[in-house]
């Protein structure tokens, strides 16, 4: 049993439901799909762990084109992403068993949800450009069916269209970078591309094509415009997969093409600087726009942009350090980025599942109509709280560990190149700190508005806890978040195989004298963090305080809340999502360009106010300044072409004549 067998078995398990769908009776479809997805996830996890500890396994499958059989390989990088995919697919499969209970159109999901997982699994084990693109497109197209699942609503169709368009634009750019590599290497296999010698110019062309292609798919600012529309409209279990792991597959593609195929030896300094700049801008602007949302799933989608930014800060630092020949620090940056990748998969998957649970029981995505759900949905609230603490980068959970590692990489970076270049490293650290603090603000708002306070609507007041399947699906990633946060010293050596493969340096060797008991990259006198000790200390202290203060149960009297003497307290007097973020909206108005209107109705007298309406709209600048102008330009060009099509026969003859002249001029 090796990692390849397990990975192929995972792929087969993901393929099976879509093949069997027409033969399965409606009543069995959900159970079969969830069971197969769960097995696929578990197999992928097993393959990932085996692949990280064992040497690479490669094989050729008798599929694909006649002259190009399908090459597949499980190497350290692919194995790590198999682990990421599997570790979220399995809990989402359990969750889906409950979430899709009353779904009449289960057949559609039974085809496309497993195919989507198959596409992602295929991308990470592909070993030639052809199968890579094949699985990549399978992932993009099958997820389009998930985005447009509720296609009766016009905005979902529009979101789906933009999603498909951007996915294909990204695909085209990636294809372009493979074309450059193919031209240099002479074959479609990754082995040939890896050994290809590229001139710095062509290497940069391939880098730019890949960076923009994968960046678009990963939702990097400013190409992210499709993401906040597409992720919220898919069913929540699909959103969890899309946000939790599909964006990570784009990160995988980025590392595969740029670190592996182009090679870390060829890095030019400005590549890292560009990635770092893109990461910093994504991290801060992602969270700034997330803060202004009141649609829960849309808010989470913006946070994906932020977290992709954090991953890119790690990768960009690593690329910059690798370009200046500091492989050890580059390995640290790479580990930080990878650790954040798996962390984000866990807590973002959990957050989307939690949002799905809330949607399931209140029927709403709008935070302004929620509140007090902690009393009605205690398990969902507890899991959601774990994810909120994790994503806010607070100890002792996992988000803090990866941000800590990223900070360490930035702080240990020595003087690089010129002054401008050196300044970008602390700048990115500053942006990372700002993004982390803003994320905490945002998740206080999310948890406070959705789960605490008073219910803001009838639906929220009568909400019910979700079923055992959905609870279990949320508890598993919550446990992963805690484990990844408490035991980084166990997981990081596992990840070490990736920098060994890509940078030929092991981080474990560098800390040989220290041991992995405490998280102390490079040296304990430089920096160290011990999550287990911190947690133990806090539990001990908290326990002592509680024990001391609770003699015989303590005296507690229940009373009404303090209402400043006003007996008429209404749930709408609470701060809501829009008012909570009002101070930040005002501070960052220059970036957000929020459109605020206060409309006061005074029908009788100028001093007698009847109604006050306050409306805020925060648009997305990427849509306004990039997508819409590009769309308008395309339409304008098409209109001109259209006019040429409809002109008279003389004009057509003229075109023909001009073409012949041109051809003669070129080919003679």
């Amino acid at each position: 049993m090796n990692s390849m067998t397990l990975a192929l078995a995972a792929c087969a398990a993901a393929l099976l439901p879509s093949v069997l769908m027409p033969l399965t009776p409606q009543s069995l479809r959900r159970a079969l799909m969830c069971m197969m997805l769960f097995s696929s996830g578990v197999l992928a996890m097993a393959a990932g762990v085996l692949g990280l500890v064992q040497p690479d396994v490669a094989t050729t499958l008798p599929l694909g084109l006649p002259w190009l059989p399908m090459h597949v390989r499980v190497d350290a990088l692919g194995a790590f992403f198999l682990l990421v995919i599997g570790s979220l697919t399995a809990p989402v499969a359990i969750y889906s068993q409950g979430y899709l209970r009353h779904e009449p159109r289960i057949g559609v999901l039974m085809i496309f949800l497993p195919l989507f997982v198959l596409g992602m699994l295929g991308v990470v084990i592909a070993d030639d450009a052809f199968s890579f693109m094949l699985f990549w497109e399978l992932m993009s197209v099958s997820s389009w069916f998930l985005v447009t699942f509720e296609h009766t609503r016009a905005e979902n169709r529009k979101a789906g269209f933009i999603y498909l368009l951007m996915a294909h634009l990204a695909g085209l750019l990636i294809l372009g970078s493979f074309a450059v590599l193919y031209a240099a290497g002479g074959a479609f296999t990754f082995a040939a591309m890896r050994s290809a010698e590229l001139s710095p110019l062509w290497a940069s062309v391939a880098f730019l094509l890949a960076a923009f292609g994968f960046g678009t798919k990963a939702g990097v600012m400013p190409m992210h415009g499709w993401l906040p529309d597409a992720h919220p409209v898919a069913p929540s279990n699909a959103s969890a997969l899309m946000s939790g792991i599909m964006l990570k597959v784009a990160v995988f593609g980025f590392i595969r093409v740029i670190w592996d195929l182009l090679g870390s030896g060829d890095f030019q300094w400005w590549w890292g600087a560009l990635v770092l700049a893109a990461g910093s801008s994504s991290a801060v602007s992602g969270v700034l726009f997330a803060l202004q949302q009141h649609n829960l799933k849309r808010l989470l989608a913006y946070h994906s942009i932020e977290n992709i930014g954090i991953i890119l800060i790690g990768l960009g630092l690593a690329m910059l350090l690798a370009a200046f020949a500091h492989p050890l620090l580059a390995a640290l940056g790479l580990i930080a980025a990878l650790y954040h990748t798996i962390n984000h998969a866990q807590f973002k998957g959990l957050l989307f599942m939690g949002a799905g649970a809330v949607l399931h029981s209140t029927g709403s995505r709008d935070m302004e109509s929620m509140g007090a759900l902690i009393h009605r949905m205690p398990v969902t609230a507890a899991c959601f709280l774990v994810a909120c603490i994790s994503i806010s980068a607070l100890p002792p959970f996992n988000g803090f560990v990866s941000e800590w590692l990223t900070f360490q990489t930035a702080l240990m970076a020595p003087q690089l190149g010129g002054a401008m270049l050196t300044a970008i490293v602390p700048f990115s650290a500053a942006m990372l700190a700002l993004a982390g603090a803003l994320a905490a603000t945002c998740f206080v708002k999310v948890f406070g508005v959705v789960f605490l306070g008073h219910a803001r609507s009838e639906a929220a007041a009568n909400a019910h806890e979700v079923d055992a399947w959905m609870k279990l699906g949320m508890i598993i990633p919550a446990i992963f978040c805690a484990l990844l946060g408490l035991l980084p010293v166990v997981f990081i050596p596992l990840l070490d195989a990736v920098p060994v493969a890509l940078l030929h340096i092991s981080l474990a060797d560098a800390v040989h004298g220290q041991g992995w008991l405490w998280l102390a990259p490079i040296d304990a006198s430089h920096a160290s963090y011990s999550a287990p000790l911190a947690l133990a200390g806090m539990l001990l202290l908290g326990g002592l305080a509680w024990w001391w203060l609770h003699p015989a149960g303590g005296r507690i009297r229940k009373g009404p809340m303090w209402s400043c003497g006003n007996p008429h307290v209404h749930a709408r007097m609470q701060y809501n999502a829009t008012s909570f973020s009002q101070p930040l909206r005002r501070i960052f108005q220059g970036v957000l360009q929020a459109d605020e209107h206060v409309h006061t109705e005074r029908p009788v007298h100028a001093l007698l106010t009847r109604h006050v309406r306050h409306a805020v709209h925060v648009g997305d600048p990427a849509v306004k300044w990039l997508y819409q102008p590009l769309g308008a330009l395309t339409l304008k060009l098409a209109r001109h072409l259209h006019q040429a099509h409809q002109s008279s026969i003389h004009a057509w003859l003229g075109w023909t004549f001009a073409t012949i002249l041109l051809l003669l001029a070129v080919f003679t």
Partner: protein
Amino acid sequence: MKAVLFQLLQALLLVVLAPLAAGFVATCKARLQNRRGAGLLQPWRNLRKLFGKEVVLAAHASWIFRVAPYVVFTATVMAASVVPALLVSTPLSLTADVIALVALLALARFFLALAGMDIGTAFGGMGASREMTFSALAEPAMLMSVFVLSLGAHSTNLTTMISHTLDTPLVLQPSIAFALVAMLMIALAENGRIPVDNPTTHLELTMVHEAMILEYSGRHLALMEWAAMIKLLLFATLILDLFFPWGMATDAGLMAMLLALLCWLLKLAVLLLLLAVCETSLAKLRLFEVPEFLSTAFVLAFLGLLIHYMLEVSL
């Protein structure tokens, strides 16, 4: 083992002395304002009174509201216990470096703000919103100003950073001056002091910290208040550690420790007196001038980082 014991004692000292420090500031302020003041021990008396009182809980408070005081208190004490006050090399400080320290304080704030929103009063939400907004600006500024020193010491461990400052000859480094100014501004904001927030107001539309803990009573309130006092002493000690560590004990001998204690109390008194003077002479800022105050701190700290990178790395 001896060092661990000393560190635990030192943490205990920080926790127990925190109300005294708060009382000292209040007394200094009173004297500066020609009042007699309630005395140095008043915060202790207040805490004892609160611990003895029963808890009145709002009818629909969730478990978050009851857990939050313990989380806030333990996270703050945890953070205080890794800050060396007397002894430079403290073994348990390895548990959390300065980034983790900032994060522990952020964890406390996270739960404080959640507790503010739990009851569902307009005051609680307002306090939470403002506190998180200000901290979103203050926390990165604090990290930046600490990073200025970390870069010099090539470390984020407090022990290493302090020994580095003690070992290097005293040269005026402009980056550290920037970091110090930024850090002082942030310390005012993080502890809710004038000119950012007023710790002595109640039921005023400008308050931040007090608005969040408005619903607390009895031992819960005592824990919250005590945590706030510990945080004040923690920030004061951190500033002394990072910028003025002279006089700290490098070994765990009795004489050295006594000398270090004396030095620490003296430095602390000067710093807290400065705070009292500052609180007496300044007026509270308008709410929307606070972000400008904090972004000034952020820019100063960032300038400190840049200056360090551009001018001082070769030193």
